């Protein structure tokens, strides 16, 4: 039995049967991460590896398992995207501006998985700087490579999380998704990635990018693993004012989709779309029909406005959220500045990377006097139209099936000089964040060159069980 080949569920079973213990599992992953560092083309999934903390936590988990008060997740390692706090350790957000910052509290999700369930934190996963990117190329800590082709990007912004799972450097990972940042890398790396309903998972201790869009979720090998981790994460948290307070029920995933109505939006299937993506999605439709689901043609007419709307709303929120990085309270400071106002400007100009500055500038511009109504307010109204498109679609469907990414993983450096081309990588994922609804990316096929392609299943608010069931039918 190779530990690195096992899913979370299989690891959990092996621990329960005393075939494996947490220290063995954790050590196997730490060895794999170290071996990757010696590869001439490393995956580089992690910004920091927490070896000591991991082994220490694994020993504690084994004691807990021996005492018989473990949960199915106890002792299983997990990678945490480096925009979520683990108390006492750095959170860099892939940015130089947070150099020197050691966090002072645990994120809610860390408290849940590591504190409550006894999962093992292997390390902090690489990401685009402040989660702004679709390729993990904007990280101050270097690029992450796609395990399927090391000259290609893993997607982003949770590229480290997706590559860690795909490259067998973690059995599961946490990511965050503002415009597709869990689903797009999951698709490009051939793993499952769930963006839950806005408000189901607390954002406390997640570094804010665009607060009305950000949501944390799992990246795993299987749909069942995604369910296990999502159920552990989903809880009401009074520390996040947008956390939803409702009765959460355990899910049952059978993969039985007989009689389900699945919407196929015409706006997501355009002439000239990538042939590999098209044939994988068509094969997925066929598979779902064979399993008894009924496909329904639908229209989401405002789809073409989603990316422009997103880049107004998300950058406006980001320009406000990122004001806090001023060199005063934490992170890096330009020590040569003579006056306070200079210190702000010099710290920020030196500490932020190019893409982050571009987005702060756009956000500042769309919020500035004279432009607020034409851009920001207008975008909030178009957001309503996009949301209504989905509400209407869910009147006659149980879920919607679309591609995740317009193309398979692209080459490193291919889009770095063209911001708009990069922004369009998220064309199929962004609407979901604007509407707040859940969606999952599930591996659905491969290109002839062996690159993974995912399918996206989108559900109505709180319909995680429905979309995971459909994802399971795709996976089986």
């Amino acid at each position, binding site marked *: 039995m190779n530990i690195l080949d096992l899913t979370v569920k299989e690891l959990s079973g092996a621990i329960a049967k005393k075939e494996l213990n947490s220290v063995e599992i954790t050590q196997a992953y730490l060895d794999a991460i170290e071996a990757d560092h010696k590869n001439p083309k490393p995956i580089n999934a992690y910004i920091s590896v927490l070896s000591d903390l991991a082994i220490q936590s694994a020993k504690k988990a084994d004691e807990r398992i021996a005492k018989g008060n473990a949960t199915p997740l106890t002792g299983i390692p997990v990678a945490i995207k480096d925009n979520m706090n683990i108390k006492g350790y750095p959170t860099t957000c892939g940015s130089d501006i947070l150099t020197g910052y050691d966090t*002072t509290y645990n994120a809610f999700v860390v408290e849940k998985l590591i504190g409550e369930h006894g999962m093992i934190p292997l390390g902090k996963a690489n990401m685009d700087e402040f989660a702004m990117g679709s390729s993990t190329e904007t990280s101050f800590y270097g690029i992450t490579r796609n395990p399927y082709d090391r000259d290609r990007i893993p997607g982003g912004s949770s590229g480290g999380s997706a590559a860690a799972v795909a490259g067998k450097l973690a059995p599961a990972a946490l990511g965050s998704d503002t415009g597709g940042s869990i689903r797009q890398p999951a698709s490009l790396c051939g793993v499952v990635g769930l963006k839950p309903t806005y408000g189901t998972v607390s954002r406390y201790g997640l570094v804010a990018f665009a607060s009305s869009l950000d949501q944390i979720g799992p990246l795993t090998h299987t749909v069942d693993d995604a369910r296990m981790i999502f159920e552990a994460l989903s809880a009401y948290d009074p520390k996040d*004012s947008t956390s939803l307070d409702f009765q959460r029920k355990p899910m049952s995933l059978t993969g039985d989709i007989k009689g389900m109505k699945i919407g196929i939006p015409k706006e997501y299937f355009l002439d000239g779309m990538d042939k590999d993506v098209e044939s994988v999605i068509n094969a997925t439709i066929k598979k779902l029909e064979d399993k008894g689901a009924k496909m329904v043609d639908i229209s989401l007419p405002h789809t073409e406005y989603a990316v422009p709307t997103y880049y107004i709303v998300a950058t406006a929120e980001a320009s406000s959220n990122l004001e806090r990085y001023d060199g005063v309270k934490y992170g890096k400071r330009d020590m040569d500045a003579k006056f306070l106002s200079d210190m702000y400007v010099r710290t920020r100009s030196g500490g932020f990377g190019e893409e982050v500055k*571009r987005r702060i500038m756009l956000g500042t511009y769309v919020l*500035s006097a004279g432009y607020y109504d034409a851009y920001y307010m*207008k975008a909030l109204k*178009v957001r*309503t139209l996009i949301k209504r498109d989905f509400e209407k679609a869910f009147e006659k469907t149980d879920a919607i099936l679309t591609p995740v990414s317009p193309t398979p993983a692209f080459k490193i450096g291919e889009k770095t000089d063209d911001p708009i081309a990069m922004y369009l990588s998220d064309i199929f994922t962004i609407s979901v964040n604007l*509407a707040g*609804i859940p969606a999952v990316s599930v591996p659905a096929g491969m290109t002839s060159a062996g690159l993974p392609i995912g399918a996206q299943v989108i559900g109505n608010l709180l319909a995680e069980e429905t979309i995971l069931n459909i994802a399971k039918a795709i996976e089986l």
Partner: protein
Amino acid sequence: MPEIGLKDVENTAKLAKLEFTGAEKEKFAGQFSKIVKFVEKISELNTDDIPPTTHAVEKRNVIREDSVGESMPIDVFEKTAPKALDRSIVVPRVIEH
């Protein structure tokens, strides 16, 4: 909408507390014009009677009891701040002359 020029880049940078070198400004103005033109697509839509969405999942204002809880100890902030002295965060001079 107007073309974005160097002046707009400078004004926006000032508001955003950022500065750019001459070459960066040139590159930026070009990219910025393209991005603004790209997002301007939404002006095609008539949204006269459409209310704005600020949060996808509607929730009323969240309040809590006004009771005293635990605060983060000051020495924690002293440790995370780039410069601190006697329970205070030290910054450069505020008044310029």
